[in-house]
Structures are given as C-alpha cells and as structure tokens.
C-alpha cells in the first residue's frame, strides 16, 4: 500500500481527480471495442449469419421478386444494408443489459466521471461495429453482382449515412437494454426490429403490400433511410423507381434520425441516472 499511496500522492494525480467527458468516453469505448476484438466468435458468427441471409435473399427470394428495369440485387443491397443496423442494434441492447447485469455499470457509475460517457461509449463502440458489418456486407454485395449506378462519391455518402442511421438507432437500443435489465429480455425486446425491417421498402416494393400496411411502411423511418441509400446508389434509375428526388428521402430520413436521438438519448440517460 505504501507504493500505491506514494504513486497516487504524486503531483500528477493530485491535480486531477476525474476524467472529463471526452477522455472517459474514449476510455470506456476502448473497453467495449477490446471486448469485441478479443471475443472474435461474436463478430464472426454475426457476420457469417448476416452474409448467409444476404445470399439467401440474393439467390433464393431474388428470383421471385421482379423490379421493373433493375436487377433485384441492386434493389436489395441498399435495403439489406440499411436494415442491418437494426439487427446489430439487438446485439448492443443485449451488451448494454449484460454490462448492467454483471455489475460493471455499477462500478462505472460509482466513479467520478460524467455519467453520459458510459452510454456514449456504448453508442460509439457499437456504431464502429455497424461500420464494420456494413463494409463487409458491401464487399460481399459487390462480389455477387451489385453495381453502383451513381458516382463513387454518392456510394460513399450512402455508406456514411448508414453509419449515421446506425448511430441513431444505437440510442434506441441502449435505452431498451437499460430497461430490459438482462441480456435475454433485451434480446426479446429486440423483436421490435422485425416489423420495422420487413414492413418497409427494404426487401420488396411497398406497392406489393396490402393497403393498410402501406400506410405504416411508407412513413416509418427505415423506409426513408433505405430509399435515401437507394437514391444514392441507383443513380439515374432512382427517380423513376422511387418517384421522388434523393433530397426528398434524405430530409425525411434525417428528420427521423434526429427524432430517434432526441427521444432515445434523454430516456436512456434518465434511466441510467436512476439506477
């Protein structure tokens, strides 16, 4: 203990008693990322599963779905990739609940650091994971015949937007994980992903759905996000297929993005504060 006392009593630490928001967020983010990197089976399994689903859509269902004037793969990829952020979200919700369950959050909450940093760290680390899986799916997509009809710059913008959408949804899933309290319940609550993912324009055109479903499908956030990505990757085909210019979808997708963050973030922080 004498060694600890002398180390801790040194002038370097006597002046600072806690880390600020940026430093503590990055420190906790590093921990979450290390956990992913050092438990590779988590990422490998998730990636393999996603690739399999992608190939099933591409080669099994793809033959039965006809999109006028466009190969199905070019229609599917933006939908599949944008929807992917929801499915990664289930994982972050479970990870958040697990941290809570295992007491790590108690330790972090008992430290003199800004409380938002722990949640921000979770959002950042899991957004990094979204970036990884988006890049991976895109690589597979190109390998099985996906082409960008617009410019490469538009393609990059689409990639960036998917990450932004992912970041917004992370806050929703973090809030869910905090409310669920344990990983299994969090997985169960993750079921809300299914109506969002399937009752959207992600896999099939909305016009093929019953009218009452179309109302929801047309206006829900994921459809606007998917169609924003489409507008950027389909180039000249986009307007004919989607009926609006890309700015139409972009503004709506961004409004949804802001709304999701504006609602989920304070709810998550309030829940975290309460303990």
């Amino acid at each position, binding site marked *: 203990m004498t060694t*600890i006392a002398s*180390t801790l009593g040194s002038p370097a*630490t006597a002046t*600072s008693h806690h880390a600020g928001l940026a430093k503590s967020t990055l420190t906790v983010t590093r921990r979450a990322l290390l956990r992913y990197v050092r438990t590779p089976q988590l990422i490998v399994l998730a990636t393999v599963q996603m690739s399999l689903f992608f190939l099933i859509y591409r080669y099994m269902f793809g033959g039965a779905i006809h999109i006028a004037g466009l190969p199905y793969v070019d229609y599917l990829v933006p939908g599949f990739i944008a929807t992917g952020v929801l499915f990664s979200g289930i994982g972050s919700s479970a990870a958040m609940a697990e941290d809570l369950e295992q*007491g790590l959050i108690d330790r972090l909450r008992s430290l003199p650091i800004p409380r938002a940093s722990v949640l921000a760290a979770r959002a950042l680390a899991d957004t990094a994971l979204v970036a990884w899986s988006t890049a991976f799916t895109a690589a597979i997509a190109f390998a099985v015949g996906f082409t960008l009809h617009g410019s490469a710059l538009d393609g990059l913008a689409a990639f960036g937007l998917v990450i932004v959408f992912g970041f917004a949804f992370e806050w929703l899933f973090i809030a869910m994980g905090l409310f669920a309290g344990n990983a299994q319940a969090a997985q169960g609550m993750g079921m809300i992903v299914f109506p969002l993912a399937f009752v959207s324009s992600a896999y099939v055109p909305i016009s093929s759905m019953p009218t009452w479903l179309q109302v929801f499908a047309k206006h829900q956030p994921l459809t606007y996000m998917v169609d924003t990505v489409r507008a950027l990757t389909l180039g000249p085909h986009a307007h004919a297929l989607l009926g609006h210019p890309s700015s139409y979808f972009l503004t709506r997708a961004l409004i949804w993005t802001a709304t999701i963050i504006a609602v989920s973030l304070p709810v998550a922080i309030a829940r975290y504060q*309460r303990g």
Partner: protein
Amino acid sequence: MTPTIEAQGLTKRFGKAVALDGLDLVADAGQVVAVLGPNGAGKTTFVRAVATLLALDGGALLVAGQDVRKRPAAVRRAIGLAGQFAAIEPAMTGRENLEMVASLFGQNRRTAKATAAAVLEQLGLVDAGDRLARTYSGGMRRRLDLGASLVGSPRLLLLDEPTTGLDPRSRIELWDAIRRLVNSGTDVLLTTQYLDEADHLASQIVIVDHGRAVATGSPTELKRQIGGEVAEVHVRNSRDLGTVAEMLGRIDAGVAEIDEATRRVSVRVDSRGDGLMTALRSVHTAGIEIDEIAVRQPNLDEVFLTLTERQPDTDRAARTARAAA
C-alpha cells in the same frame, strides 16, 4: 474528525418491498464497520445508497461529510466500490482493467501504468497481471475487483459481500488483502452474511434486519449479548424428540427447538455446561438412544433470534412441518 458515514432514518422501497425501513448508522473514521444480516435485510441497498447508485426515499445520508443527494460527485471521489459481482472486464487483462479505472480517475498514461502496477503488487496479482481476466479464478477476480476499487485511493472502501461464493482459501486470501488495506489507514464498510467474517475484519458490527439496524457494537460486545453456546442432540428415534426436548428445556430455562426432519433438538446453554451435563444424564437414564451430541457456537440464525427477540423462526417451523408431513 467527521464520521465516514452518517445515516439517519434511511428509507427505500422497491414497489411493495421495503428494503430500508429507517436505518440509522454511524461509522467513525479509522474503523472497519461490518454490516451483518441475512439475505434481503437491506445490506446491498444500503451500500448502493452510500455509493450514490440509488435514490433514497427518505432520511439523511452523509458520506465523508458530503450529502449523497446534494454532492454525489464529491462522494464518488471519496469512495471505492467492490460489489457482489466482480465488476471487471473479462476481455481485458488485469493490468488493463486497473489502467482503465486509473485513467477514468483522470490519471495520465504513465501514472495510470504506475498505479496499476502498484495495485497488482499489493494484491498479489503481478504474475497474472498480463493474462485476460476471463482466465482468472473466482478468488483472483474478486481480488482484481478489490484492486479496481483501490485505484482512486478512496477514503472509504465499500465491500458488498466480498467473499460470498469463494472457496475457503480464496476467502482467507481476500481477508488478508482487506486487513492490509485497513492497516494502511483505509476506512472500510463491508457487508456480510458471515459472523466469522465480521469477527475477523471489523471493529464495529451493525446487525441489520428488515431494513433496520437491530444491534451495534464491537464483536466482543455483541458476543456478550448473544452469549453461550448451542447444544444439539440428535436422537435415533423421532418418538423420543418430545421427551428429550422437555429434558433439555429445563436447562437455564431455555426453550428447546425440535427439528423433526433431522431428528434434532437444540437448546441454548451457558459455556460451563453444568445444566447440559445434568440434562444429558437424565436422557441417558431414560434409556433414549442418541446418535450424536454437539456443542457449537450459535449460528447467525440464532444470533438474530436473540437480538431481535423473535419467537423461534416461523419459517423454519413451517419447513420442518412440511418435511415431516
């Protein structure tokens, strides 16, 4: 010097369950205080309140002289918490875990490294320091967790059931680590279900039950209150239970308890055992067959019965009745 903890009339409910029901507690500086109580007594709720992890419904709580509600940040700077679960990241090494906490205390990289090295040394984890924590044994995890709570060199260390679930050897190792800390001047508040743990580590014991403090004192004072020992007679035939209970009941005007399921009669006796000898002689004379006789320290249940002056535990009577049915 201000007391480390001053709690007055703390209350906390979770839905209908009352976790704290007017708990009063004062922990003086320079002491190890053990909060002793059964599961559900409110021990963990109390520690979480001290650690600013939950909002109290009522009462006043000062930690290191600071109000937990008004100045939680100041309280957090004064405490280190090691909860019931080893709150460490299994996918990081022991050293990385400690460095993470150190950098959250605002230490720069070099200082954080030095702190981590010092804590590993202190807790005898130097050899395992660079292994991932998920390869650690249960005892090592707890020690690392304890280490993490020391990184901020807290004035008050909060240990919530630090040895629950550990094997005897790891338990003793952890006790040694805690004792060394105490010698170096850290105040400790620990919760435990084990009387011997409180006895080994604490200079002040607060017995908590149903969310209230029911007794406070040094281990010696409390033992004096509890007094004596418990004699258990294990009979061969359950039809003899009544007779034996009646004979043992004459000792020191004690009330003999019958446990039908295990064919055991137990009674409180004083340490000299004169009354017990007499009673056993009459049992022998009556020709009752006996499997085993044991004299032991009162267990926590019995301590509680004495200190809370409750009638023999109704739960246990119910259990016994069910087992017999």
